[in-house]
């Protein structure tokens, strides 16, 4: 058994940034990161640039081996945690190693949800999550139009499964590489699990304008190998019986943390690992941060699960401080903006529809930009009740991200301006920030 002061499960941005924060505050402590990947920290965000040929593999890596040595952070690669015993303060790994911790951080991140249909194991079906995923796509792209030699293999058609951010990234990367791209979404309309019909139409129009076909209401029944290379995907067949010939498939149907190994540990789980505003779990000396944490968001006053890079890095700093005894409330408005074909789609704050009391829509499909603002009523000591903006989904209307973020952060009462919010000409910068 190995004894460590600070044990971190997860070598992504959360675990690494927390380790760095802890090292800064506790120069003499021992810090161990257990990572189930065989690499130092790299940027998942850069994987699409890597695929598009705009970033090298070297750029994708954010930390080198020397960094861990200089900071005396022991990165144990390629090990997965298997059992947590909170009473004994131990974590057991799949390889049999047992670590005893004083403080434990669960920075487990998330994994893409895999499609479990016949043919899922075929080559050239990528999830764009790991370096290996990116390399698989790069290899598949080697036969594309732009690098094709006469008589050489030809990769021309790509199918993207799923609306959403990963799907957008795939579609953009495929298109940049000259691939004829079709997006299939299982919802009634494109990205229907998160967007309303109008916002969906705004994004779909941008995609179609850039030559991408978008087909909704089609779920994958199976993948079939190609005639020339039966080990690689050659066709997607949907449940309705439609067939889409392809040389490459990108899948983005959601992410999920792997929490199965925590069963029986007594830790409270509700979609993610439940924490308070200090990112403390219900178990003593056990903390959670990043994609896997369902934390208490002090701004919107509710539990919140966020899967963005900035959220992960910021939570890591807060939890690192708390773990070393500098108790720190995590307080931030999360925001993520995807940029594709000179357009954007942003999610800000709390965008779970059932959390809000009302949703206001600004803009129209014809204008090509729509902001949907999520409002919630809160009790107020002065006036009895107040209405605050808690989140927004902003389709191609980037200028509204900053004022909406400010309004959420500053808990602005919008009751007086409620009716004006739906008017796209009403400048959100004029909301009173008290």
């Amino acid at each position, binding site marked *: 058994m190995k004894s460590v002061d600070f044990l971190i499960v997860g070598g992504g941005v959360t675990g690494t940034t927390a380790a760095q924060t802890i090292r*800064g505050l506790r120069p003499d402590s021992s810090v161990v990161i257990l990572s189930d990947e065989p690499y130092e920290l790299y*940027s*998942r*965000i850069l994987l699409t640039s890597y695929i598009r040929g705009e*970033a090298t593999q070297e750029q994708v890596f954010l930390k080198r081996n020397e960094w861990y040595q200089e900071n005396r952070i022991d990165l144990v690669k390629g090990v997965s945690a298997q059992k947590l015993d909170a009473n004994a303060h131990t974590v057991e790994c799949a390889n049999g190693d047992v670590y005893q911790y004083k403080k434990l951080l669960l920075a487990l991140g998330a994994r893409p949800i895999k499609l479990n249909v016949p043919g899922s194991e075929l080559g050239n079906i990528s999830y764009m999550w790991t370096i290996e995923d990116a390399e698989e796509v790069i290899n598949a792209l080697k036969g594309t139009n732009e690098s094709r030699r006469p008589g050489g293999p030809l990769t021309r058609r790509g199918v993207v499964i799923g609306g959403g951010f990963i799907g957008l990234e795939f579609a953009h990367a495929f298109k940049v590489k000259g691939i004829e791209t079709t997006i299939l979404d299982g919802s009634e309309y494109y990205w229907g699990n998160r967007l309303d019909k109008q916002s969906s139409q705004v994004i779909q129009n941008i995609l179609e304008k850039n030559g991408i076909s978008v087909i909704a209401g089609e779920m994958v029944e199976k993948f079939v190998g190609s005639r020339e290379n039966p080990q690689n995907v050659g066709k997607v067949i949907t449940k309705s019986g439609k067939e889409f010939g392809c040389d490459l498939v990108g899948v983005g149907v959601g992410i999920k943390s792997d929490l199965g190994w925590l069963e029986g540990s007594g830790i409270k789980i509700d979609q993610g690992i439940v924490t308070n505003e200090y990112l403390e779990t219900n178990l003593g000396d056990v903390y959670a941060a990043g994609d896997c944490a369902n934390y208490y968001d002090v701004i919107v006053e509710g539990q919140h699960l966020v899967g963005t*890079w*900035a959220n992960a890095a910021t939570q890591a700093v807060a939890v690192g401080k708390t773990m070393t005894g500098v108790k720190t409330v995590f307080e*931030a408005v999360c925001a993520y903006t995807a940029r594709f074909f000179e357009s954007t789609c942003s999610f800000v704050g709390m965008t779970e529809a059932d959390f809000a009391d009302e949703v206001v829509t600004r803009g129209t499909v014809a204008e090509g930009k729509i902001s949907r603002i999520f409002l919630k009523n809160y009790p107020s000591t002065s006036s009895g009740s107040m209405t605050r903006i808690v989140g927004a989904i902003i389709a191609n209307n980037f*200028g509204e991200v*900053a004022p909406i973020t400010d309004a959420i952060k500053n808990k602005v009462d919008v009751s007086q301006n409620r009716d004006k919010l739906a008017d796209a000409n009403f400048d959100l910068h004029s909301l009173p920030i008290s």
Partner: protein
Amino acid sequence: MAKKYRIKVDRDLCIGAASCVALAAKTFQLDSENKAIVLSEDADTVEAIRLAAESCPTKAIILEDAETGKQEYP
């Protein structure tokens, strides 16, 4: 003299992930193009600035020693 950074943002690399803004809000802000800009070079602590730069997923933030001009990150 206390250490100070000269801070640059490579706008071609910046994708507006905004971890820098979250970690050093007095130093970084997003502009109307969703790119980080530098508000001040000494409003946050050097540790916060360093962490903000290192948290950037595209290595778009460049830190130089203000005195020597030597690049310190990335």
